[in-house]
């Protein structure tokens, strides 16, 4: 049984005791002193705090730690449950503070506070574990994305195929940066969300690249290129004349004389060199059978020496017109021209607009061996196991692994 105590009576306990003792001395017989003393003792007991202050402090500490690790944001339901219980118990404590409790009465509120403390500890440990797991997941996801993006960018850059993907690589890079920023702010869920979006864009880019460069893994296309190269070598052998084969995927110019390969030189291609040229300004290097139509000395070209080719040939024009009819290129697009094998100008560009570039020493050698009319056959690849197919397989494996 408990009685409600008026707040106005909430005076210091020793003051109550003194008053009662004075009253005892003046008015009562010694025989009455025992029950009165007991009453005083009960009143003292009832005025002691119902809940240990260290328990309250411990709960407040847990609450503070839950807030510090971001539990309201990371585990709102768990934290709200804790906060609700804490708020309810605060109300109960306030209510109980107004009551006089018999010493033999059980203190349920203290039990409940201890349970809340245990619950808070468990919640704290769980949120910490969840946060650590989320952090690890986000960290791993960002690292994988970074690795995939770097691999793709570096591959695209080495192929000179940046424009195959256009703005998409930059878009993915921006997403990666945002994911990192949210990670730094410890917003792992949002970081993961953005990483997932970036991974999706990267998947699309890998698919685009695979589609655009699939012909480097196409056995029939490889066979066609091999036939073109073989026929060119055969022509060189029959006519006892020089011939040139350019292998785009290997970035290599092969010089044949009398049907025998006499030398090979590294080349640089257009900035979309691995694509087959279709229109002016696409940065692609054409594929097909061409001939040297003009030889330019140092005074006629800014590129030290240049061998002008007869691009576009009949096959190029047929493809261009078919694409225009199909609407895959703008109606105003032009087929382009002025494709050369040339040396280097003062800019030492890493790529060309579509031409084949050698260093000046090599172009000088080639220039001295060929004549106007020398056949130049440009092919994508001569073997199915080429750097593009290997790299595409690697990119696809990375995509599957992620």
């Amino acid at each position, binding site marked *: 049984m408990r009685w409600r105590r008026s707040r106005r009576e909430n005076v210091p306990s020793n003051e109550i005791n003194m008053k009662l003792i004075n009253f005892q001395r003046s008015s009562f017989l010694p025989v009455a002193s025992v029950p009165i003393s007991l009453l005083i003792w009960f009143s003292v007991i009832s005025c002691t705090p119902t809940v240990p202050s260290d328990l309250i402090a411990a709960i407040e500490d847990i609450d503070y730690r839950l807030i510090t690790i971001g539990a309201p944001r990371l585990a709102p339901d768990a934290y*709200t449950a804790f906060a*609700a219980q804490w708020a309810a118990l605060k*109300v109960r404590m306030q209510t109980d503070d107004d009551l006089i409790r018999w010493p033999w009465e059980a203190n349920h509120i203290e039990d409940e506070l201890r349970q809340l403390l245990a619950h808070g500890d468990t919640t704290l440990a769980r949120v910490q574990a969840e946060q650590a797991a989320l952090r690890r997941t986000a960290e791993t996801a960002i690292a994988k994305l970074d690795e995939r993006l770097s691999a793709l960018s570096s591959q695209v850059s080495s192929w000179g195929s940046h424009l195959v993907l256009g703005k998409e690589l930059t*878009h993915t890079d921006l997403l990666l940066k*945002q994911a990192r*920023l949210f990670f730094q702010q410890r917003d792992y869920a949002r970081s993961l969300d953005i990483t997932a979006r970036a991974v999706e864009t990267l998947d699309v880019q890998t698919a685009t690249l695979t589609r655009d460069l699939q012909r480097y893994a196409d056995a029939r296309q490889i066979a066609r290129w091999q036939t073109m190269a073989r026929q060119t070598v055969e022509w060189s052998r029959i006519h006892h004349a020089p011939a040139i084969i350019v292998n785009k995927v290997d970035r290599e110019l092969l010089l044949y004389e009398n049907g025998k390969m006499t030398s090979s030189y590294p080349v640089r291609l*257009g900035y979309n060199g691995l694509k087959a040229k279709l229109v002016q300004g696409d940065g692609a290097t054409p594929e097909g059978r061409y001939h040297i139509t003009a030889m330019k000395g140092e005074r006629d070209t*800014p590129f030290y020496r240049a061998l002008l080719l007869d691009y576009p040939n009949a096959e190029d024009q047929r493809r261009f017109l078919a694409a225009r009819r199909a609407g895959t290129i703008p109606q105003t697009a032009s087929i382009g*021209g002025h494709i050369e094998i040339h040396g280097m100008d003062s*800019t030492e560009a890493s790529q060309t607009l579509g031409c084949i570039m050698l260093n000046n020493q090599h172009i000088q050698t080639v220039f001295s061996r060929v004549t106007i009319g020398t056949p130049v056959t440009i092919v994508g690849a001569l073997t199915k196991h080429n750097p593009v197919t290997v790299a595409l397989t690697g990119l696809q494996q990375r995509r599957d692994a992620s």
Partner: protein
Amino acid sequence: MKSMRQSAGFVILLILTAAAGCAKPPSDAIEAAEQAVKNAREKGANVYVPEEYAKLEGKLTALKQELAEQEGKFAPFQDYGKVEELATSTAQEAAMVASAASQKKEEAKAAALQAQQVAQEAVTSVHDLLARAPVGKDRAAIESIKSDIEALTAALTQIQGSIDREDYQAAQAQAKAIDEKSRAISAEIQDAMAKVKAGKRSLK
């Protein structure tokens, strides 16, 4: 004797009825508290002051628990005093939390707008730098950079989209990413320009 018993019973019944009639849940106060918490959420409290908002929700839950407890009691023993007290203090705290959320939101908006401006300036700067690059510069690099700048320009519209959606945290992250990327591209252009000496006439 029987009449006395009947009278006593009647009196007790009267007292109980009176007591039951007095103890009614403070519906208006509870509704006001709920509305205040809802209002705080609408002001973005769960995003901008999540700690305070979680406490607020906790308090509202405690209020509902206390209400349920009182409603579960036999009518004469129901006491909604604490419920009312909780409802009043919840409503008051919710108003403060809503105000704090509004303030934080305004701060986040201001920060997002500033970051947006910085990003816009950075993209404009890259545009200007590219325009100054000589025609004969490494065309491949220029084409690549143009593509990057197009992506950055498109991303600027995303910042505005986030601001319009009042997702200022996303807007800030987008703006910072654009700024960082723009600076990297600017450095790339300046590096490429340093190598330039002559132009190249070409059709290709």
